[in-house]
Protein backbone atom coordinates (compact mmCIF):
# COMPACT_ATOMS: atom_id res chain seq x y z
CA UNK A 1 0.00 0.00 0.00
CA UNK A 2 2.83 2.36 0.96
CA UNK A 3 4.55 1.57 -2.33
CA UNK A 4 1.34 2.46 -4.20
CA UNK A 5 1.15 5.78 -2.39
CA UNK A 6 4.76 6.50 -3.25
CA UNK A 7 4.33 5.50 -6.88
CA UNK A 8 1.12 7.49 -7.45
CA UNK A 9 2.72 10.97 -7.83
CA UNK A 10 5.57 9.49 -9.87
CA UNK A 11 3.20 7.73 -12.26
CA UNK A 12 0.96 10.77 -12.52
CA UNK A 13 4.03 12.79 -13.58
CA UNK A 14 4.26 10.48 -16.61
CA UNK A 15 0.73 11.34 -17.72
CA UNK A 16 0.41 12.64 -21.31
CA UNK A 17 -1.01 15.96 -20.06
CA UNK A 18 2.29 16.81 -18.46
CA UNK A 19 4.55 15.32 -21.11
CA UNK A 20 2.96 17.13 -24.08
CA UNK A 21 5.00 19.83 -25.81
CA UNK A 22 3.10 23.08 -25.48
CA UNK A 23 2.17 25.02 -28.65
CA UNK A 24 4.54 27.86 -27.74
CA UNK A 25 7.45 25.47 -27.21
CA UNK A 26 7.43 24.04 -30.73
CA UNK A 27 10.22 26.17 -32.14
CA UNK A 28 12.59 23.24 -32.43
CA UNK A 29 9.90 20.96 -33.89
CA UNK A 30 9.16 23.60 -36.54
CA UNK A 31 12.75 23.62 -37.84
CA UNK A 32 13.10 22.31 -41.42
CA UNK A 33 15.46 19.58 -40.22
CA UNK A 34 12.57 18.10 -38.21
CA UNK A 35 10.40 17.68 -41.33
CA UNK A 36 9.31 14.16 -42.27
CA UNK A 37 11.17 14.44 -45.57
CA UNK A 38 14.09 16.78 -46.24
CA UNK A 39 13.30 16.87 -49.96
CA UNK A 40 9.72 18.09 -50.55
CA UNK A 41 9.93 17.44 -54.31
CA UNK A 42 10.99 13.84 -53.86
CA UNK A 43 8.24 13.36 -51.26
CA UNK A 44 5.61 14.82 -53.62
CA UNK A 45 6.76 12.57 -56.49
CA UNK A 46 6.84 9.44 -54.31
CA UNK A 47 3.34 10.20 -53.04
CA UNK A 48 2.14 10.82 -56.59
CA UNK A 49 3.57 7.47 -57.77
CA UNK A 50 2.04 5.77 -54.75
CA UNK A 51 -1.51 6.98 -55.17
CA UNK A 52 -1.39 6.48 -58.96
CA UNK A 53 -0.39 2.84 -58.64
CA UNK A 54 -2.52 2.01 -55.64
CA UNK A 55 -5.62 3.72 -57.08
CA UNK A 56 -5.99 5.49 -53.78
CA UNK A 57 -5.74 9.11 -52.79
CA UNK A 58 -4.18 10.82 -49.82
CA UNK A 59 -3.58 9.09 -46.55
CA UNK A 60 -0.06 10.46 -46.39
CA UNK A 61 -0.67 12.56 -43.30
CA UNK A 62 -1.34 16.23 -42.91
CA UNK A 63 0.55 19.06 -44.54
CA UNK A 64 2.75 21.62 -42.84
CA UNK A 65 5.61 21.43 -40.42
CA UNK A 66 5.81 20.54 -36.77
CA UNK A 67 4.61 23.82 -35.30
CA UNK A 68 0.93 22.81 -35.43
CA UNK A 69 -0.06 26.43 -36.08
CA UNK A 70 -3.63 27.62 -36.77
Amino acid sequence: MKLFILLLPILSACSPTLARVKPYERGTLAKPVMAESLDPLQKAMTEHAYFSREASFGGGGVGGGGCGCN
Partner: protein
Amino acid sequence: MKSILLALAATILTLQAQEPAKVGQPVPKLAELLPGATLPSTSGKVVLVDFWASWCGPCKESFPALNRLHEKYATKGLVIIGIGVDEEAAKYKAFSGKMGAKFPLAHDSAHQVANFFNPPSMPTSYLVDRKGIIRHIHQGFHQGKTEAEYVKEIEALITAK
Protein backbone atom coordinates in the same frame (compact mmCIF):
# COMPACT_ATOMS: atom_id res chain seq x y z
CA MET B 1 -6.54 6.32 3.05
CA LYS B 2 -5.83 9.93 3.98
CA SER B 3 -2.47 9.77 2.20
CA ILE B 4 -4.08 8.43 -0.99
CA LEU B 5 -6.60 11.25 -0.97
CA LEU B 6 -3.85 13.81 -0.39
CA ALA B 7 -1.75 12.38 -3.23
CA LEU B 8 -4.80 12.43 -5.53
CA ALA B 9 -5.61 16.02 -4.58
CA ALA B 10 -2.00 17.06 -5.28
CA THR B 11 -2.13 15.33 -8.67
CA ILE B 12 -5.41 16.99 -9.63
CA LEU B 13 -4.08 20.40 -8.55
CA THR B 14 -0.95 19.87 -10.68
CA LEU B 15 -3.10 19.03 -13.70
CA GLN B 16 -5.37 22.04 -13.10
CA ALA B 17 -2.36 24.38 -13.11
CA GLN B 18 -1.92 23.51 -16.80
CA GLU B 19 -5.41 24.82 -17.71
CA PRO B 20 -5.44 27.48 -20.45
CA ALA B 21 -6.75 30.96 -19.61
CA LYS B 22 -10.52 31.25 -20.16
CA VAL B 23 -13.07 33.92 -20.96
CA GLY B 24 -14.13 35.68 -17.74
CA GLN B 25 -10.77 35.19 -16.06
CA PRO B 26 -8.88 38.25 -14.74
CA VAL B 27 -5.44 38.94 -16.22
CA PRO B 28 -2.52 39.96 -13.99
CA LYS B 29 -0.41 42.99 -14.93
CA LEU B 30 1.90 41.90 -17.76
CA ALA B 31 4.66 44.11 -16.37
CA GLU B 32 4.69 41.89 -13.26
CA LEU B 33 5.06 38.74 -15.36
CA LEU B 34 7.73 40.34 -17.57
CA PRO B 35 9.77 42.51 -15.19
CA GLY B 36 12.49 43.47 -17.70
CA ALA B 37 10.19 44.50 -20.57
CA THR B 38 9.05 48.03 -21.37
CA LEU B 39 5.29 47.79 -21.66
CA PRO B 40 2.69 50.53 -22.05
CA SER B 41 0.16 51.29 -19.31
CA THR B 42 -2.91 49.11 -19.71
CA SER B 43 -5.02 50.32 -16.79
CA GLY B 44 -8.53 51.20 -17.92
CA LYS B 45 -7.79 50.22 -21.51
CA VAL B 46 -8.94 47.47 -23.84
CA VAL B 47 -5.93 45.19 -24.32
CA LEU B 48 -5.19 42.70 -27.07
CA VAL B 49 -2.49 40.26 -25.97
CA ASP B 50 -1.19 38.39 -29.01
CA PHE B 51 1.18 35.41 -28.77
CA TRP B 52 3.47 34.95 -31.77
CA ALA B 53 6.70 33.21 -32.74
CA SER B 54 9.16 33.57 -35.61
CA TRP B 55 8.56 29.94 -36.64
CA CYS B 56 4.78 30.38 -36.90
CA GLY B 57 3.47 31.18 -40.41
CA PRO B 58 -0.01 32.48 -39.46
CA CYS B 59 1.62 34.79 -36.87
CA LYS B 60 3.48 36.48 -39.72
CA GLU B 61 0.19 36.95 -41.59
CA SER B 62 -1.44 38.53 -38.54
CA PHE B 63 1.00 41.46 -38.20
CA PRO B 64 -0.42 43.70 -40.98
CA ALA B 65 -3.94 43.23 -39.54
CA LEU B 66 -2.76 44.05 -36.02
CA ASN B 67 -0.99 47.16 -37.37
CA ARG B 68 -4.26 48.27 -38.98
CA LEU B 69 -6.15 47.73 -35.71
CA HIS B 70 -3.48 49.68 -33.82
CA GLU B 71 -3.71 52.62 -36.24
CA LYS B 72 -7.51 52.68 -36.05
CA TYR B 73 -8.13 52.10 -32.34
CA ALA B 74 -5.00 53.13 -30.37
CA THR B 75 -6.36 56.65 -29.86
CA LYS B 76 -9.74 55.24 -28.80
CA GLY B 77 -8.31 53.19 -25.92
CA LEU B 78 -6.89 49.97 -27.42
CA VAL B 79 -3.45 48.68 -26.49
CA ILE B 80 -2.02 45.80 -28.52
CA ILE B 81 0.87 43.89 -26.95
CA GLY B 82 2.65 41.25 -29.03
CA ILE B 83 4.32 38.59 -26.91
CA GLY B 84 7.11 36.78 -28.76
CA VAL B 85 7.73 33.30 -27.37
CA ASP B 86 10.91 32.49 -29.28
CA GLU B 87 13.51 30.88 -27.09
CA GLU B 88 16.37 32.44 -29.07
CA ALA B 89 16.76 36.21 -28.68
CA ALA B 90 18.37 36.57 -32.13
CA LYS B 91 15.33 35.03 -33.86
CA TYR B 92 12.96 37.22 -31.88
CA LYS B 93 14.91 40.36 -32.82
CA ALA B 94 15.26 39.43 -36.50
CA PHE B 95 11.55 38.58 -36.87
CA SER B 96 10.25 41.61 -34.97
CA GLY B 97 12.54 43.87 -37.01
CA LYS B 98 11.24 42.41 -40.26
CA MET B 99 7.55 42.62 -39.34
CA GLY B 100 7.56 46.39 -38.70
CA ALA B 101 5.08 46.24 -35.84
CA LYS B 102 3.62 49.62 -34.90
CA PHE B 103 2.42 48.29 -31.54
CA PRO B 104 4.67 47.31 -28.59
CA LEU B 105 6.33 43.91 -28.56
CA ALA B 106 7.85 42.00 -25.65
CA HIS B 107 10.10 38.97 -25.54
CA ASP B 108 8.87 36.20 -23.26
CA SER B 109 11.94 33.98 -23.55
CA ALA B 110 11.34 32.25 -20.19
CA HIS B 111 7.63 31.75 -21.07
CA GLN B 112 6.39 33.43 -17.88
CA VAL B 113 3.44 35.07 -19.67
CA ALA B 114 2.85 32.04 -21.92
CA ASN B 115 2.73 29.75 -18.88
CA PHE B 116 0.00 31.94 -17.38
CA PHE B 117 -2.19 32.14 -20.51
CA ASN B 118 -1.22 28.66 -21.74
CA PRO B 119 -2.27 29.40 -25.37
CA PRO B 120 -3.76 26.26 -26.96
CA SER B 121 -2.31 27.01 -30.43
CA MET B 122 -0.08 29.52 -32.20
CA PRO B 123 -1.02 32.28 -32.70
CA THR B 124 -3.57 32.86 -29.94
CA SER B 125 -4.80 36.27 -28.86
CA TYR B 126 -6.74 37.41 -25.82
CA LEU B 127 -9.00 40.45 -25.88
CA VAL B 128 -9.16 41.94 -22.40
CA ASP B 129 -11.76 44.54 -21.36
CA ARG B 130 -11.14 47.81 -19.48
CA LYS B 131 -11.54 46.00 -16.14
CA GLY B 132 -8.82 43.48 -16.96
CA ILE B 133 -11.12 40.51 -17.68
CA ILE B 134 -10.58 38.25 -20.71
CA ARG B 135 -13.61 38.72 -23.01
CA HIS B 136 -12.62 36.96 -26.25
CA ILE B 137 -10.03 34.37 -27.26
CA HIS B 138 -8.89 33.88 -30.87
CA GLN B 139 -7.09 30.69 -31.79
CA GLY B 140 -5.10 30.87 -35.00
CA PHE B 141 -5.32 33.67 -37.57
CA HIS B 142 -7.72 33.32 -40.51
CA GLN B 143 -7.07 36.56 -42.43
CA GLY B 144 -10.17 38.70 -43.08
CA LYS B 145 -12.46 36.56 -40.94
CA THR B 146 -10.38 37.02 -37.79
CA GLU B 147 -9.81 40.72 -38.52
CA ALA B 148 -13.57 41.33 -38.90
CA GLU B 149 -14.17 39.58 -35.58
CA TYR B 150 -11.50 41.71 -33.92
CA VAL B 151 -13.09 44.94 -35.25
CA LYS B 152 -16.55 43.94 -34.01
CA GLU B 153 -15.33 42.88 -30.56
CA ILE B 154 -12.93 45.81 -30.06
CA GLU B 155 -15.62 48.36 -30.99
CA ALA B 156 -18.04 46.76 -28.52
CA LEU B 157 -15.45 46.73 -25.73
CA ILE B 158 -14.29 50.30 -26.38
CA THR B 159 -17.83 51.69 -26.24
CA ALA B 160 -18.78 49.59 -23.19
CA LYS B 161 -18.72 51.46 -19.90
